[in-house]
């Protein structure tokens, strides 16, 4: 994985500190060209990996990438699935079974034999595979070396003790897409312990890691201890803690931590992208000496 990964929250009005900013972002990124332009700015700073949710609009971005093979020859996408709000809003209205009926591809009880049989026989892992395939369709012919499970699902499975499902995701992504599985979580130390116990070695785990201790469940000290003593490939996200820490302080903190392979951040403007990327480059060598 590259040192810097570019995120997509800003494109889809995900803002952890202000609903007003959310709306402003929604307006700013109304056109796909605005997203592409921002990805261009990231590429100017040498960032070639886009980590994004499987939001419907990403399909358009993928189409543009496929149509410009030269420009995007080194470009990679790390898909993060599922785009949870799509399902969450559907569950409020349709219930869980109703939502599955709507989103598992094909007609459950009809034409798609695999889906119908999976549903009737309650072969849950098969249903999961069908949902993964549905979400992966948009990335056809695009390099997706790591495929992530979103935190709401990872953490729910973690709380429910459904380790087998986490393992099944890991195995399926490797088998079907020749990709490594990644797990996004708000409970990194707990998740790592469970994955280790299940025999998944050196897993890719993306979690909030920031100087403010924001969304670091179990506490910042436990996270730092886990980074120091455990074997896994850590990605730090929410490094700016939603703005609670100044960018300089935030990046300095993350860069001096041991064992962080990549830093994920998203930004809307060329200036902010450049500033954050430069700070990472600035503080990185300090660590090595």
């Amino acid at each position: 994985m590259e040192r810097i990964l570019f995120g997509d929250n800003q494109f889809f009005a995900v803002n952890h500190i202000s609903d007003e900013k959310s709306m402003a972002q929604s307006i700013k990124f109304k056109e796909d060209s605005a997203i592409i332009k921002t990805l261009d700015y990231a590429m100017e700073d040498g960032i070639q990996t886009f980590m994004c949710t499987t939001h419907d609009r990403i399909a358009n971005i993928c189409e543009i990438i496929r149509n410009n093979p030269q420009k995007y020859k080194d470009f990679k996408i790390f898909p993060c699935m599922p785009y949870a709000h799509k399902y969450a809003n559907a569950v409020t209205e349709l219930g869980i079974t109703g939502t599955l009926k709507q989103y598992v591809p094909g007609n459950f009880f009809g034409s798609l034999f695999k889906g119908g049989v999976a549903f009737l026989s309650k072969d849950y892992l098969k249903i999961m595979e069908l949902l993964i395939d549905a979400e992966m369709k948009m990335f056809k012919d695009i390099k997706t070396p790591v495929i992530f499970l979103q935190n709401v699902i990872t953490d729910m499975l973690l709380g429910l003790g459904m380790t087998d499902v986490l393992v099944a995701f890991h195995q399926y992504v490797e088998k079907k897409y020749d990709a490594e599985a990644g797990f996004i979580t708000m409970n990194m130390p707990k998740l790592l312990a469970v994955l280790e116990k299940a025999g998944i070695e050196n897993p890719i785990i993306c979690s909030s890691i920031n100087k403010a201790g924001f969304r670091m469940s179990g506490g910042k000290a436990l996270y730092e201890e886990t980074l120091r003593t455990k074997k896994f490939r850590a990605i730090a996200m929410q490094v700016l803690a939603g703005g609670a820490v100044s960018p300089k302080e935030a990046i300095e903190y993350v860069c001096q931590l041991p064992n962080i392979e990549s830093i994920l951040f998203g930004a809307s403007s060329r200036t902010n992208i450049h500033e954050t990327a430069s700070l990472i480059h600035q503080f990185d060598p300090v660590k090595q000496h």
Partner: protein
Amino acid sequence: MIKVGIIGIGKMGISHLAILGAHPDVKVVGVCDTSKMMLDAIEKYSPFPCFTDYKKMLEEAKPDAVVVAVPTKYHAAIVEELLKRDVHVFAEKPFCLNPEQGAPLVALAKQKSLVNQVGYHNKFVGTFQEVKRIIDGGFIGEPYHFLGQAYGPVVIKAKQDTWRSNPEEGGGCLMDYASHVIDLINYILAPITDVKATMLKSIFSKEVDDAVFSMLELSNKVTGILSVNWSDETYRKMSTSISINGKKGKIVSDANELKVFFKDDECPAGYSKGWNIRHVTDLTPEVDYYLRGEEYSAQLDYFIKTVQGKVPNSINSFESAWLTDRAISLIRKEQR
């Protein structure tokens, strides 16, 4: 260890179950649902014992406390049964279909000294807690107007019906979405005791309201407006906010950001005259296990601590949720 059972594993139930499953002081002794689809998944992949009959679960698993997350129309009967069996109860919101159903349960829980809580999670959101602290401290002076709002994209086109689209079963925007805002107004300011006028609008639903607009009066005579719409797709997810005008200042807050204006220097420590902004990141204590928001873990942790006798049963009691049910019924009655 507190032995906890759960009845109902729909959207909220499954989330509660995951949080309880990760709680260090909780042993999940039973999971009950009538949907085989969900229950089989739990049985197959989770370590929890499963039941299809909740009475059987109570008899066999003998939980100290039970989380009730079934559709609202079943709340009253199940909660009554639990209280009669001396089981502590956490019920999902809204509490009951109407105040008449809930009143005897409030009394029974009190009489039996059982822990009783309802899942109005906004009270565990850092920004709203801070709004309450500022109001209670009198820092914006005497409130004279409020605006409580919630918007989100739940029903954005005409679709098939579920219990949420049946008014007799607790469906609709007023019961499901607006109840959160009503409860927050009751908590931060004072209970709603009078309703001047209400408009309930069906936008895409056939049987239920998709939006609620209402003019309210509180027990302390403060008046304000409720504006809730779950058919607004310009929101990515539910966004709840409250703004309060006082004679010495004004507060505007949602779950992420609190903006407060003070007319003079008599404000809480860390604040100053004029506009101040606080973010939930600075106001939210860390939880041991996070799923969807700190407030969901915090409310169940509070429930468990109440059962353990570590904290008083004062936040989100049946009584406070009953006041919300009463307000819902008043709002419905004044429909124009």
